[in-house]
């Protein structure tokens, strides 16, 4: 293998496992349970067994508190951790918009504003590993379900 090729692969792996992703995997934020959640939803990735449960407590129109629990690969768990940090305190409408933007980024849609995603942009490297995309989006789909349940009450 040429040196260029070697470097390209190394850099793809580095893109997948960016420092911030490993940091969230090693030091998860908002991991645990809420004392009084408005809604709680369990998401499972049946192909690989990743599990993420998202709990939300609404404060009026705002996402007052959020927590996640679960087990799975570094991508699924760090994505959940990064998500909770990104949406905590936001309005439900803002959280929904972020879910839409994030899933659009993972689909590779054009026209996503990278600034709107902030640190979450680090997860874009997952796109080069198609089988892992579902790992990254699991927490986000689970949050969408939890918000739907919370809003329905």
């Amino acid at each position, binding site marked *: 293998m040429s040196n260029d090729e070697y470097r390209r692969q190394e850099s793809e*792996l580095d893109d997948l496992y960016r420092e911030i992703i490993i940091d969230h995997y090693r030091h998860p934020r908002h991991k645990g349970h809420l004392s009084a959640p408005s809604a709680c939803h369990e998401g499972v990735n049946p192909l690989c067994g990743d599990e993420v449960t998202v709990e939300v407590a609404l404060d009026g129109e705002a996402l007052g508190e959020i927590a996640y629990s679960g087990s799975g690969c570094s*991508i699924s768990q760090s994505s959940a951790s990064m998500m909770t940090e990104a949406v905590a305190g936001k309005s439900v409408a803002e959280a929904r918009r972020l879910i839409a933007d994030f899933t659009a980024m993972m689909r590779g849609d054009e026209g996503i504003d990278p600034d709107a995603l902030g640190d979450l942009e680090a997860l874009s490297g997952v796109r080069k590993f198609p089988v892992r995309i579902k790992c990254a989006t699991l927490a986000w789909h689970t949050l969408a379900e939890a918000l739907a349940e919370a809003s329905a009450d």
Partner: protein
Amino acid sequence: MRQETRDRVLDVNAIRADFPILQREVYGKPLVYLDNAATSQTPRQVIDALVRYYESYNANIHRAVHALGEEATAAYEEAREKVARFIGAPSAESVIFTRNTTEAINLVAYAWGRANVGEGDEIILTQMEHHSNLIPWQLLAEEKGAAIRYIEVTPEGTLELGNLSALFSPRTKLLAMPHVSNSLGTINPVEEIIAEASRRGVTTLIDGAQAIPHMPVDVQAVGADFYAFSAHKMLGPTGVGVLYARRELLEEMAPFLSGGEMIRKVTFEGATWNDLPWKFEAGTPNIADAIAFGSAIDYLDALGMENVRRHEVEVTAYALERLRAIDDVTLYGPDDPEGRGGVVSFNFGDLHPHDVGTILDRQGVAIRAGHHCTQPLMRCLGVTGTARASFYVYNTQEEVDVLMDGLKAARDFFR
């Protein structure tokens, strides 16, 4: 002397030259294919059999009066004879071609299960079932109001047989279990368990998907009423499975799938069924792949299944030895390589198996990461998944070394 003992049972270099795919590279590295429990690779001889069929005698079977049809029919039935000989079946009539192991088990669950399992009856399975030998029975039990009892798995990954007799009751109708665990590699003492079941008049089914490809198996010595396996795990093409069954059972059973080929006489009022085994092969079967499967059996026969087994024990023993030498590797399944098939399931530190799998993939090493279609077993082990390397006739100890280098790379990456 050391040189001589290496791979002495099989000429692995000659074998590797038969597999075109082993020449390819993955991400610029030589492919190290260690996912044989999922599917095996295909030798040139099997690919040639497929090409020969489509280039020279492609025709539908059993009905044509022309030369091509006769040749195709003869080749298809010859493949069935080869399968019967290979597994020690008393006759080709008890060998039914299906799509895969899963379909073979479903055939039994529908054609036998629906007629013989009723409300309050019991089915015995193990905690190490592949979903394919679990879900068909759960659906049957739910539909009929039957109960399922499970033979437990010990922390060593073997079956807890101390209280086996307590699992049977007068209502037990079926015992179904794997010959070799796809997740742990455990070789189960099927003869002993089946003898116990048969003494009690309980019908038995063995999921042999991980056994037939890797060791000599005589289905009559095993003694099961039904025995299922797949071609694609034993150097054959995808799309062909086998259900072996005792003839008396097949004769009693109603058809599973119905349509052409499986009938004898059809009127507007009804139909009578074809002879065995065709009664269970409705519609045009997978002719080409069944014939090519025959070539895969020829290939394994030429190697000798005892040699295949010895080779896998050697490679597996080496892999276990190397893995044990790494700190923080957790191994699952029996310690003794003689007690397991060529399957090594492990976890590595606090790394998730998917992350290990992705790093290894970039080194050209293909392993399996996840629950291996055995989610309940994973819960018993207290893990969400494992990394699994599984070996076959073309794998070498040098490839195990590449796997170990890959694990070191994974550790460095996540340090």
